[in-house]
């Protein structure tokens, strides 16, 4: 345990970047330079923390009588490294997207984005439930301006839904944290759980667990607490990509992991009969989201339901709480991030380049955006669970882990959910690659979704132009897509290539010691 400034720096660098972005508001290139520099610096800091021997800790005194500290343990580093890596990519993409689409309020966008990352780093490195709660709430506040970015009535409605769900969940978290503080005398995360909780009054411990799960379940989008996520898709696509597919929902599932693995501990969780209800809720969400997702013609809305399902893959792994399942869940945090952000980036490229948002409107778009749609297809295959993409490795462990519990049902749920994913992604990829615009044959329509209300035909030509190689979109848009899909494939082919594998192993080792 070494006192170090690294965990604090990981929070401070993006936090300081936010006002700097605001100060540079009159010079867009400088402003984006600040964002990129901060993103790279944050990644550097997290990387140093990964490399640092021992566990870097920054104590920050006590607040309201509870110790407030940031601690870069293996689990925190896994999440922080993921968010920091993808922030770099998303920053580049944001520049391309906002400029291509011509979004307004770009200063507010970049400042709020940096603030959101700062809060995410705080969630990752929080050393106890109290600190975690503080950053968890700050994350909600920092992301709110991004959700309502468009400034339309729909965006405000979505923003209100978002805040009502997440801050409502925050109250449940607060109540749970207070209960844990009183029951255990502390809320510090300790691998394998707090011993005092296993000895506490079981009814109260169950109530505390339920409150925490409900609270964190909101951001994890466990059904029926998921309503905010599809609504929040009105945000600009990079926001949907990094924040709603990665930082925000992953903060929820990460906090869930902190609850199950580091507060209650796998043993106490199952000893109190809490693992099964959580597992059932997650399993039901996987199937429910899979079914609802089938009928979404809006690309981003469909991806939102896919996220809801995938997050419950992770939640189910945590609920099963065997070493293999937890290992798979942690790997899936990373794998899903790389694949889902690729999908959102691709959806964003489609929107930026063609202005289309619906599957049935982009028949044959593969001709116009070949590299993008190939990346989309690869990432989709990964989410379904095809080998050689990251999703296979994590799901493999999840399924093996599920088999360790007597209820084999969950193995079946994983497999059925994978099938639903296949049914969900197949029409999109098929229509995009083999469909034809202006043709009403089944090959050009979404196979399951009802047609959306159209404005009557397409503007301009009915055929897609094939661009010169590498010229299908701005490099700011294209390179991030290729980078993230490359990451997903790298993690599928050589899972140990990045530190995520080792970090996940370290988590499992310390939790199940």
């Amino acid at each position: 345990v070494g006192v170090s400034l690294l965990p604090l720096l990981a929070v401070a660098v993006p936090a300081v970047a936010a006002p700097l972005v605001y100060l540079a508001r009159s010079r867009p290139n400088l402003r984006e330079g600040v964002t990129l520099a901060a993103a790279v610096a944050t990644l550097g800091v997290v990387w140093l923390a990964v490399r640092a021997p021992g566990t870097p800790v920054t104590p920050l005194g006590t607040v309201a009588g509870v110790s407030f500290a940031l601690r870069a343990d293996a689990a925190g580093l896994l999440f922080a490294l993921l968010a920091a890596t993808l922030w770099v990519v998303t920053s580049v993409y944001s520049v391309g997207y906002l400029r291509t689409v011509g979004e307004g309020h770009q200063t507010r966008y970049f400042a709020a984005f940096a603030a959101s990352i700062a809060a995410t780093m705080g969630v990752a490195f929080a050393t106890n439930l109290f600190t975690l709660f503080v950053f968890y709430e700050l994350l909600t506040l920092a992301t709110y301006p991004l959700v309502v970015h468009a400034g339309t009535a729909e965006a405000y409605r979505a923003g209100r839904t978002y805040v009502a769900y997440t801050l409502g969940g925050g109250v449940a978290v607060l109540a749970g944290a207070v209960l844990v503080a009183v029951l255990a005398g502390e809320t510090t995360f300790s691998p394998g759980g707090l011993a005092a909780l296993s000895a506490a009054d079981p009814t109260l411990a169950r109530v505390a667990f339920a409150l925490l799960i409900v609270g964190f379940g909101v951001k994890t989008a466990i059904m029926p607490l998921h309503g905010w996520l599809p609504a929040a898709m009105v945000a600009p696509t990079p926001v949907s990509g990094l924040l709603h597919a990665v930082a925000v929902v992953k903060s929820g599932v990460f906090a869930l992991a902190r609850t199950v693995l580091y507060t209650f501990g796998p043993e106490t969780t199952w000893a109190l009969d809490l693992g099964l209800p959580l597992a059932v809720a997650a399993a039901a969400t996987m199937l429910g989201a899979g079914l609802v997702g089938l009928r979404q013609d809006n690309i981003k809305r469909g991806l939102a339901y896919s996220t809801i399902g995938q997050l419950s893959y992770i939640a189910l792994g945590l609920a099963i709480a065997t070493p293999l399942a937890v290992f798979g869940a942690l790997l899936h945090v990373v794998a899903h991030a790389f694949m889902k952000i690729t999908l959102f980036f691709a959806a964003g490229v489609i929107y930026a380049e063609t202005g289309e948002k619906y599957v049935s409107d982009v028949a044959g778009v593969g001709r116009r955006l070949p590299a993008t749609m190939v990346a989309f297809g690869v990432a989709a295959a990964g989410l379904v669970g095809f080998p050689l993409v990251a999703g296979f490795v994590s799901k493999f462990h999840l399924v093996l882990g599920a088999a360790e519990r007597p209820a084999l049902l969950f193995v079946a749920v994983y497999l059925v959910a994978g099938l639903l994913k296949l049914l969900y992604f197949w029409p999109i990829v098929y229509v995009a690659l083999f469909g034809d615009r202006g043709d009403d044959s089944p090959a050009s329509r979404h196979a399951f979704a009802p047609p959306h209300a159209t404005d009557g035909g397409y503007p301009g030509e009915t055929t897609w132009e094939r661009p010169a190689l590498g010229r299908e979109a701005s490099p700011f848009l294209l390179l991030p897509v290729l980078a993230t899909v490359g990451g997903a494939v790298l993690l599928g082919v050589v899972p140990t290539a990045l530190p995520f594998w080792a970090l996940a192993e370290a988590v499992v080792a310390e939790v199940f010691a």
Partner: protein
Amino acid sequence: MSLLLPLLVTVPLLGALAPFVAGTRRSRAGRAATVAVLLAHLGLALAAAVLVARTGPLTYVVGGLPAAVGIGLLLDRVSALFVVLVAVTAAGLYLAVREDRTGPGDALWLLLLAGLTGVVVTADAFNLYVFLEISGLAAYALVAGRAGVDRALAALRYLLVGTVGATLYLLGVGYAYVATGTLAMADLGPALAAVGHDSTLVVAAYVLIALGLAVKLALFPLHGWKPPAYATAPRDVAALLATLGSTVAGYALVRLTFGVFGVEFLRGVPGVRLGLVAAGTAGVVAGGYLTLRRAELRRLLSYSSILQFGLFTLALGVATPLAVTGAILLLVANAVAKGGLFVAAGHAERAVGRSVGDLAGFGREAPILAAGVAVAFASLVGLPPTVGFAAKWYVAVAAVAAGSWGVAVVVLVSTLVSLAYAGRVVERLYLAAPEGRPGDRGLATDGGGDVAGPSRRRVAAVVGVVAAALVVLGLGSTAVAEWVAPVVEGWA
């Protein structure tokens, strides 16, 4: 014996004459005299606080008479906190946003300061009544201002209700005197215990005292005077009263409940605790509901105070040291936030209008002001890392630890209610575009005269300081808790 204590009261009390005399001829001289008195009082308050930190509680008995009949003064760590709050607020608001700088107006400002300081430092239950009345009379006159039927009516209502409250308090003190034969707080505690906590006389004394102070706190359903008074009072007066008026009464309730009647009394008479919890819950529920429906910003803020003082009363009902610490933090958090918000509301009134709807897009026009307002609302809601959050955390942990589940639930759910009204204002401020209003914002709609006031820069500075204070107090809440701990734990 420390001479600082009588000076804390007498300097503003006698100093109130200065602007009255000096200001009749030359208003500038009156203003200078007022500033001098305010700064002297602030210096005394800080010096006294430092002395308390170094040497422990300060006491003083005027004229050396025995405590039972004399005027005793006491400054311990809890009262020092409130004396500093009172001094800083009175001086800060005067320097930054005071608009009416006539001699009589300034004299009332100082008189109010003297009364509030007296309530905080007195060690005698009867003198507390005297100081309560001094501050009350000054407040009624300040609310009435110099013009306006609305103000006169609001002030009259404030006067009537406030006087009833003070009279109830006096009745309670009378009962306590009949029961014990003393009025000095230090002697009252043991004497009341000797009479027996469940004796009718003692219980009646507490109930009357608490009811009287509840009027001053504007606890539901005794809150009717507050929204009109705060909504129609001159802007600077509203800010001062919103910060200190009920806060000091809250301090008095803490002092009398725990420093005089004591935790044993609350334990011995469960009905009283139940009453506190019930009144607090009613305050939270009613305050929350009424706040949601306000269109006018100042009224909304007044109703929010009703919710906040409901929370405060709930915390008293839990009655553990942790809960009392939370209650004190709630008082401070609400005071600081309301001060900043009333200053901001006053400025917005001059710039765009009185209602929440008028704020549309104001955030873009005044970014620093709006950011400060957002932080102040975050503290009222109880979002981290503000002091409002720390206060709620203490109260919630205390409630759960004491097994008061209902209190814990109300405290936590109040967050959501507060969120609903705070969110409405902040959303307006930042995101809504101005609707159908003429482009020029500088114009006042109700004719000249009222337009002059502190500059936006100055107002933004006040609100910015308030926001910073809320965050610093939040991050430093442990230090505040440790500061009051010796006293609060002594009460247990």
